[in-house]
């Protein structure tokens, strides 16, 4: 899923302080699961903003709503009837949802309430970690199911680099060396012979480098 984390409230206050009618807009998908932008976080942020502005003698209308998805026309349309009730929206969706809402409601100022961090997994209670960078050309079949693009700080295709120490990356002893994990998995699969296959130079044209990416499926088009 897409992992996000809450923006510091001071940053949000700074963005919305000049507006009087504000909608805090949550999303019921990834950001709910990673506890950054679901219904619960909408409530918490709204209360905090109300409190802050009241103490400043600046009472604002701060409403709450959480859509099923913000990356979907159908659900974003639910705002259509009330959009003019607001001077600004703070969206707690990922960057995709924020942009999709902005594209739809051109004249309403819209601010992100979270920082979108990565494509990751809920590794432990309160811990979300990156697993994928959407490079557009998956190589996991060759790397024991561990991704060097997203998990190696140098995205080394033929690793590990010389900085791997005790299973950890040179950038931090809290970061696993992706290539240690790859070697461990190849060992577990009894496929260490594959380690010596040289990974070819990667085609990054399917990555960010190739410009904004699209997927077109003629078979599902209406």
């Amino acid at each position, binding site marked *: 899923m897409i992992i996000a984390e809450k923006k510091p409230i001071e940053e949000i206050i700074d963005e919305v302080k000049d507006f009087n009618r504000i909608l805090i807009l949550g999303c019921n998908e990834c950001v709910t699961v990673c506890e950054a932008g679901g219904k619960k976080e909408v409530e918490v942020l709204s209360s905090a903003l109300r409190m802050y502005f009241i103490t400043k003698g600046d009472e604002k209308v701060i409403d709450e709503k959480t859509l099923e998805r913000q990356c979907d026309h159908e659900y974003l349309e639910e705002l259509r009837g009330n959009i003019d009730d607001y001077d600004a929206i703070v969206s707690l969706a990922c960057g995709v949802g924020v942009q999709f809402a902005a594209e739809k409601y051109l004249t309403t100022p819209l601010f992100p309430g979270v920082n979108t961090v990565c494509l990751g997994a809920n590794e432990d209670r309160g811990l979300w970690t990156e697993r994928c960078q959407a490079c557009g050309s998956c190589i996991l079949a060759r790397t024991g199911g561990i991704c060097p693009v997203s998990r190696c700080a140098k995205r080394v295709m033929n*690793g590990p*680099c010389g*900085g791997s120490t005790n299973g950890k990356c*040179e950038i931090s002893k809290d970061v696993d060396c992706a290539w*240690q994990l790859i070697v461990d998995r190849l060992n577990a699969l009894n496929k*260490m012979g594959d380690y*010596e296959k040289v*990974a070819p*130079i990667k085609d990054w044209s399917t990555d960010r480098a190739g410009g904004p990416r699209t997927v077109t499926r003629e078979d599902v088009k209406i």
Partner: protein
Amino acid sequence: MSNLNTQSNLEKVLKAGHIGVTSECGPPRGSDPEEVRKKGLLIKDHVDAVNVTDNQTAMTRMSSLAACIHLKLIGIEPVLQMVTRDRNRVALQSDILGAASFDIPNMLCLSGDHQSFGDCAQGQNVHDLDSMQLVQTVRYMRDEGKFLGGDDIKRPPKIFVGAAANPFADPFEIRVPRLAKKIACGAEFIQTQCIYNLDKFKEWIKRANERGLTDKTFIMAGMTPMKSVGMAKYMKNRVPGMDVPDEIISRLAGVPKEKQAQEGIDICVEHIQELKEIKGVSGFHIMAIEWEEKVPEIVERAGLYPRPAI
């Protein structure tokens, strides 16, 4: 390994069966060419070629290529170090041609320290290729006379291509397979990480010998003299992938502070003398960091002087 592929003196020395000696110059954090020349001249007569580091530890410095040119112009053979951290395949190929246009005959292909160690921790890194793929790229440009994109190169680069190896990084079990991969990619010489743990290094090179890898490439053992017990502790505890045994630290700690530098030189000389006798060691890469003036003493006392003229 007798056919010469380039005009490299280092290639000639190694292929003639001599023990090769290289050292390194870190370019300055400024634009004064005199600093490069001064360092180069300190070691010129005691080495076969001089590595020029490429923004080592990710600290911004004068470009490696420019510093190589300064050395080349005063008759010192450079080894152009190139990391994949800062340049994509367009820039790498372009700089390879730039180096070849000055007849810089050697290159060392590296991934480079992560930028978080340097003065631009907030910068992007590139890593379009990795170090092995950079070795492949140089060999392809040289041997096939083509760009990665497939077009012909007019006057292909004649460059003797090297790679680094760290026998001490983890996991140890893949250190020799990783060397094999680098050789398969076309690494003609290997310069290793600084060696302090001789037993572990010997085990690594024994395994390389067993696989016949030392017949396919020239392994130059990396040597860095310790200036002080403080430096030894720093290397042990703070430098990624470095293996400094406690006996080195206690030996340095066992002499008065003002004699620790000399003790460090002595250890370095003793290590070279010991490793000279090991099958598979083809040379030494002496990295005396900001201590270039000590390289002549080390080379002479280790019995590696005069350098062969070929």
